[in-house]
């Protein structure tokens, strides 16, 4: 039977099913193959909070969205072209994401009366049968039955056979998009080395899915998305948390310090711990503490001892670390605090994304306790940003927040990875050993940037005491003197302000330097804003985009940039936080634009806001 291949530029595909269906794995495997092929891509995994939510229910639906393209892209796509659903609940939860005319691939076994009931379709209603999906191209495949058929001689039990279902789907999708199976076969072979029966079963099912596409009469068209013309170089695919973990190892290497990572597990930060705990041969010391207070406490201890101290959590854990962050501010030692933000307050939406901890990072401590705050804007950018956080912490002897969020942490994109030799070096300045006849050691003596030296135990002649009580400048002795306290508060603040001299000026990412409307973003909204502004500019709108990485201190020219526009809009996945800071610091009438749904902005939402504002 003849099959045609349609060339297309840009595809968004959403895999959806029970969290037990292996959706994330299917998505990740297809992503890796696509990346190796050379498309630009962006992914968005979206999972329920429960590991095994009740099967077949709407609450249990797990999704993995992937957009891949022969053009450069910045978001995982607003709406999808292909929706793969393993059951009725997955269809119901995601249908609104599908473009009119889009393709639905439905596992019919997941549409039996039981599943339809669990998905809360009225009795007797089956969307596959009632023409309600007329606007779409629906392909029904009985994946369960075909998987069983394919493995009937394998000797495996029903449960094990059922678990390979996702490989059938993956095989089919690989066929549909003209991709080969090599990478997936290699993955399966590695993963199931120790259980050859399972390895073979998975490969067999994968191939069955692929050949099903080839032989089945219903599928006449395959799609081809050509390689993207990205900047020249060598690429790999990378997720945000992975990039952060590697960035920490790189910072340790480039500073010559031992990485100490003290943490307590929490979604969506734990993957950094998992990753780092595998890098023991890099000398990385990971420490899973009894709680977040001990996590940061141990990190402060390690940093006092001369290690590159990094602690990580998400909002609730950062709240617990607050008092200790204040101690680090007082001690003036390097400390990196990673916050992979999630929906709050309290436990909030643990597996969903949000940017609602900016004010917590800036102000969430007792006393005047300034800390540096910087935020990554894409999965790959987590590498650069965490590296920069380490640099600032070490070179300026200060706590630094690295902000990411669930969307960046789990999302992925191609990364033109650097070579070690191209990474800047990080210069730790240690106080030198002292001889008896040398003048007394002054632990709080500062250089011109107001930075003190790192005086670590084990260094002869540097015996001294530090602590959380206010200290006299230079000597570090306890001091309750009123003038000294004011002086010290101002000095610690100025030390952080001085960092503005060492960071890049704020750039306009896209658009003119001066004009009608500036969209100011920070963190993971980058892709959506970029895509929206680019489209609007192409359509002739007078709009520009600036994305702030350095949130404290701000780049020195930020005020000037803001004053160059008639209007400033600040899209944030919170109830308006950066906008408050900008208004406070620069007295600009910046306009908040908020989305607080645990989901990233779509490019269309931002574009609409731009159009609406400029049409007024």
């Amino acid at each position, binding site marked *: 039977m003849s099959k045609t291949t349609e060339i297309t530029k840009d595809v968004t595909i959403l895999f959806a099913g029970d969290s037990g269906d292996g959706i994330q794995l299917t998505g990740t495997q297809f992503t890796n193959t696509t*990346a190796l*092929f050379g498309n630009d891509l962006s992914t968005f995994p979206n999972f329920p909070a429960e590991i095994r939510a009740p099967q077949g229910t709407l609450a249990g639906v797990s999704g993995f969205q992937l957009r891949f393209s022969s053009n450069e892209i910045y978001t995982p796509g607003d709406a999808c072209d292909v929706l793969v659903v393993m059951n009725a609940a997955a269809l119901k939860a995601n249908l609104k994401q599908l473009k009119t005319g889009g393709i639905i691939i439905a596992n019919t076994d997941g549409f039996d009366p039981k599943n339809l009931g669990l998905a809360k379709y009225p009795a007797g209603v089956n969307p596959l049968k009632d023409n309600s999906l007329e606007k779409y191209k629906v392909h029904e495949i009985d994946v369960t039955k075909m998987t069983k058929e394919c493995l009937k001689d394998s000797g495996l039990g029903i449960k094990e056979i059922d678990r390979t279902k996702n490989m059938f789907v993956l095989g089919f999708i690989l066929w549909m998009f003209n991709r080969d199976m090599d990478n997936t076969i290699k993955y399966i072979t590695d993963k199931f080395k120790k259980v050859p029966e399972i390895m073979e079963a998975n490969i067999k099912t994968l191939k069955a899915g692929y050949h099903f596409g080839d032989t089945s009469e219903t599928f006449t068209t395959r799609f081809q998305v050509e390689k993207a013309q990205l*900047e020249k170089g060598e690429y790999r695919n990378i997720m945000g948390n992975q990039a952060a973990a590697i960035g920490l190892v790189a910072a340790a290497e480039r500073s010559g310090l031992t990485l100490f990572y003290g943490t307590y597990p929490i979604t969506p930060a734990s993957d950094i711990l998992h990753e780092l705990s595998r890098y023991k041969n890099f000398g990385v010391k990971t420490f899973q503490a009894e709680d977040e207070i001990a996590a940061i406490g141990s990190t402060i201890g390690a940093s006092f001892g001369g290690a590159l101290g990094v602690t990580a959590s998400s909002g609730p854990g950062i709240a617990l670390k607050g008092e200790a962050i204040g101690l680090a501010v007082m001690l003036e030692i390097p400390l990196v605090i990673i916050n992979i933000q999630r929906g709050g307050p309290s436990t909030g939406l643990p597996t969903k994304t949000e940017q609602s901890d900016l004010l917590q990072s800036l102000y969430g401590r007792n006393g005047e306790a300034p800390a540096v705050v910087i935020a990554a804007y894409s999965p790959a950018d987590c590498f650069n940003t965490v590296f920069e956080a380490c640099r600032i912490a070490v070179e300026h002897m200060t706590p630094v927040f690295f902000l990411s969020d669930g969307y960046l942490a789990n999302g992925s994109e191609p990364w033109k990875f650097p070579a070690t030799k191209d990474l800047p070096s990080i210069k730790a300045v240690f106080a030198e050993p002292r001889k008896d006849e040398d003048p007394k050691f002054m632990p709080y003596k500062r250089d011109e940037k107001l930075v003190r030296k790192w005086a670590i135990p084990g260094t002869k002649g540097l015996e001294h005491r530090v602590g959380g009580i206010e200290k006299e400048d230079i000597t570090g002795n306890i001091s309750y003197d009123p003038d000294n306290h004011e002086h010290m508060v101002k000095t610690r603040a100025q030390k952080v302000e001085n960092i503005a001299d060492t960071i890049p000026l704020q750039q306009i990412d896209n658009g003119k330097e001066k004009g009608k409307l500036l969209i100011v973003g920070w963190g993971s909204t980058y892709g959506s804003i970029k895509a929206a502004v680019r489209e609007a500019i192409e359509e002739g709108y007078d709009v520009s985009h600036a994305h702030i990485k350095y949130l404290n201190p701000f780049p020195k020219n930020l005020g000037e940039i803001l004053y160059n526009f008639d209007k400033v809009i600040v899209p944030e996945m919170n109830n308006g936080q950066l906008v408050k800071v900008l208004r406070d610091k620069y007295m600009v009438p910046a306009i908040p634009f908020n989305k607080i749904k645990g989901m990233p902005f779509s490019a269309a939402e931002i574009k609409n806001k731009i159009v609406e504002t400029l049409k007024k």
Partner: protein
Amino acid sequence: MSETIEKPYTAKELETDQDVRWCPGCGDYSILKQVQKVIPELGIKREDLVFVSGIGCSSRFPYYMETFGMHSIHGRATAIASGLKAARPELSVWIVTGDGDALSIGGNHLIHILRKNFNVNILLFNNQIYGLTKGQYSPASEEGKITKSSPMGSIDHPFNPLALCLGADATFIARTMDRDPNHLRDVLKRANDHKGTSMVEIYQNCNVFNDGAFFIYTDKETKAAETLFLEQGKPLIFGEGKTKGIKLDGFKPIIVDLANGAAASDLWIHDETDRVKAGLLSRFFDNPKTEGHLPRPFGVFYTETRYCYEDALVEQITNSISKSGKGDLDKLLKGSNTWKIA
């Protein structure tokens, strides 16, 4: 610590130029003095010594020691010391904490450092009161204690600190007191010699808010009858003229009168390595006002050899390097799947 130091230092050289600010007569002075006296005998380089404390009167201690020191935040010294020791296993790390600091706000970190068994020494200054905040009851205060925050008597049942530590699998537990300098020094030496977390509870008089809490153990009149000094391999004997002994009837300790015909050979022989007996000893914790109560033991209750966290951490790193070679950053950056765009 067998390494010899080029230039030994004196107790005097461990004093700092800061004025000591405890109330006159506070038991903390005596502890400071004994620590300063014993440390030069341990053969540790001064720059390798680190004192980490939490918050409380007792936690001011590091300011008075001419070593490295950190006066941190309430309850967290144990956590901070853990990280320091993990990063720098070669340092000699001492934690100074109070009964509130260690048993209340820092209770969680205390039990965890004990089970992890970092090679550090914990000096718990137990005055059974919150000194720095001016006299509220602590988790070590006895039931019915009248304080500013318990005018009708505390209804909190207190912790038995050493039983708690034993329950957390501590590898060294001992008790001593501020008013017995020789014993205090001996116990400190033993604590330092032990590889693992050494838990030393020090009864300390707060003469302002809880004066005399331990007088029965220090006062000439009562000391002999109320205290039991443990010595390895020796029978449990106490009392005026050493006339009383303790023997075990099954698991029940009973006091016998050696002057009245009890045989010394029947007595309980102290064995620091016996976990079960250490458990019983830690329960010699009766209210001294009750009739027929057992004396309070002092000395080393229990010691055990178990691997230290920081050693295991370093070992995993060493093994990993010898197995997979020293990490290559370029390889890590590259990952396993790449593609080229020309």
